[in-house]
């Protein structure tokens, strides 16, 4: 367990970068310190391995006051991973991982065994990678080594300072997943600093949202998302989380432009063809005699074909015409309310000039909410 009690840090004796901060991190938890740059998250983390000394307050690891401990001894027992990786370019991968065990004068045989074990764990086969040098590896591989190096001395506590933010999105995601996998088996106490709320939510057992040198809210990701303690946290976690703020979504954002269109004089037989062809259950009926952008006349759902015996029946005879029109500027909340009240599943959306923009279906709403917006899809 790590405990920070009334910790402050000031560089100029006037302003506190971290002010009277209390934080308790349970053993085996991954705690993410998240906040904008300058909020004191990195300073807070670096005080745990005394790269920065607190001006005031006390820090305990398992009830030992770290300020009473030998700095280097303390650091050798805390894993440390930084954004710029910081591998030693003049040492081979194996020697890089072996740095801390060597400093601790661990026996050579044991070190070699540990290095092999770690390389296998991060899925970089030792026979291929042990004797290579950092610059021969990709950014993602280097940071894997960075993580392995932090684990080499089997520390209980690991500090990670934006370890993945310099990586490309795909590699970042991979490493995040690998970290979660590792943590599931290793159960280290990890303090993870990031400015990326998505990363915080994905990785953290608990998240400490920080601002102005203090913790604004310290809770599980679920609680922080559902019950942000104030406007700041709400803004911090919520701005790009549309599902948290559905009023920001307009009808024009959730409609689908991919509509199957059928002429009003067409027959049921033709409609059946189109339903099959476009794998849809709704057709937009247009009157080809009207101007092109105002030719919408109705909608035919697949249910409307039930009981139609004569395959030559025209669309205009069976189409639904008393249609609730939706305005492009309506919010998702309004749209859902109307759809529920009127029990409708297909909602055509029109712009101010009464032109049809597209249709909202349950499917298009689901697509938006799950963040999957297909580039093109046949309806």
């Amino acid at each position: 367990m790590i405990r920070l009690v009334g910790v402050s840090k000031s560089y100029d004796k006037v302003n506190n970068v971290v002010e009277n901060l209390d934080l308790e991190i349970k053993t085996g938890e991954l705690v993410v310190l998240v906040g904008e740059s300058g909020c004191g998250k990195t300073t807070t983390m670096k005080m745990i391995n005394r790269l920065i000394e607190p001006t005031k307050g006390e820090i305990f690891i398992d009830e030992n006051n770290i300020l009473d401990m030998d700095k280097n001894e303390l650091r050798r027992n805390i894993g440390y991973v930084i954004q710029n990786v910081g591998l030693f370019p003049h040492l081979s991968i194996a020697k890089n991982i072996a740095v801390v065990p060597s400093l601790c004068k661990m026996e050579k045989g044991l070190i070699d065994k540990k290095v092999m074990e770690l390389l296998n764990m991060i899925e970089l086969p030792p026979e291929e990678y042990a004797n290579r040098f950092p610059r021969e590896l990709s950014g993602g591989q280097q940071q894997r080594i960075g993580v392995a190096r932090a684990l080499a001395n089997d520390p209980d506590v690991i500090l990670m300072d934006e370890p993945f933010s310099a990586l490309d999105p795909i590699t970042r995601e991979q490493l995040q997943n690998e970290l979660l996998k590792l943590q599931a088996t290793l159960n280290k106490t990890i303090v993870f600093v990031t400015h990326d709320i998505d990363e915080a939510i994905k990785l953290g057992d608990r998240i400490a949202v920080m601002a102005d040198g203090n913790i604004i809210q310290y809770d599980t990701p679920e609680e922080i998302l559902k019950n942000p303690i104030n406007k700041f946290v709400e803004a911090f976690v919520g701005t790009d989380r549309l599902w948290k703020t559905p009023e920001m979504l307009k009808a024009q954002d959730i409609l689908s432009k991919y509509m199957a269109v059928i002429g009003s004089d067409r027959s049921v037989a033709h409609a059946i063809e189109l339903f099959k062809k476009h794998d849809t259950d709704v057709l937009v009926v247009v009157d080809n005699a009207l101007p092109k952008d105002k030719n919408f006349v109705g909608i035919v759902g697949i249910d409307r074909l039930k009981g139609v015996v004569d395959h030559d029946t025209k669309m205009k005879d069976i189409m639904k015409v008393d249609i609730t029109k939706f305005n492009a500027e309506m919010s998702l909340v309004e749209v859902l309310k109307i759809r529920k009240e009127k029990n409708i599943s297909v909602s055509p959306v029109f712009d101010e000039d009464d032109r049809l923009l597209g249709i909202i279906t349950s499917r298009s709403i689901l697509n938006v909410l799950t963040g999957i917006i297909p580039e093109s899809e046949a309806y």
Partner: protein
Amino acid sequence: MNLINYFIENADLLVDKTFEHIFLAGIAVALACSLGVPVGFAISNNAKLAKNVMNVANVIQTIPSLALFAFAMPLFGIGAKPAIFALFLYALLPIIKNTLLGIHNVDPAIIESARGMGMSEIQILFKVEVPLAIAVIMGGVRIATVTGIGIATIAALIGAGGLGQLIYQGISMMDFDMILAGAISSAVLALLADFVLGQVEKKLTSKGITKQKA
């Protein structure tokens, strides 16, 4: 042909003078290394001090070599001592400069991670900074050595001996073979010294720094 004969007939003299030359430049560079490298490391954390030290070294460098030899004479008399002193002063600048440069080129992230892993300052110096800066430092030593061997030819004027002696004697005797023997030998010596130090540099530098990306 005469020149070749000169080399053969005066082999003993040439070897003697070459060793004198190596002695002058070698002792001067060795002294400059043993002062310059530690000074470079010591001032690397203090930008203001580093600037002042570099300014002094720069001023020394601008003094014409003959004048510097002349300055050294009242202090050390004539012979090898004032020559070595002057050559030592000349060698300081490239060595201190490159030491500073080598250290400043070390990525701060590497130092931070070294500190974060629990290395002491001494361990950071010898396990991280020196190995990473050694190639650049050796570059400075090479420059110092090559210029030192060049300037050492002038040292003959204050009685320090070396290959310069052949050149000056040759000039006064209008003996072109003698002049060329001295000039060629000192040039070859400089090239050879640079090559040898280049090999040492290669040996001391980790493959992880020199090796091209696979």
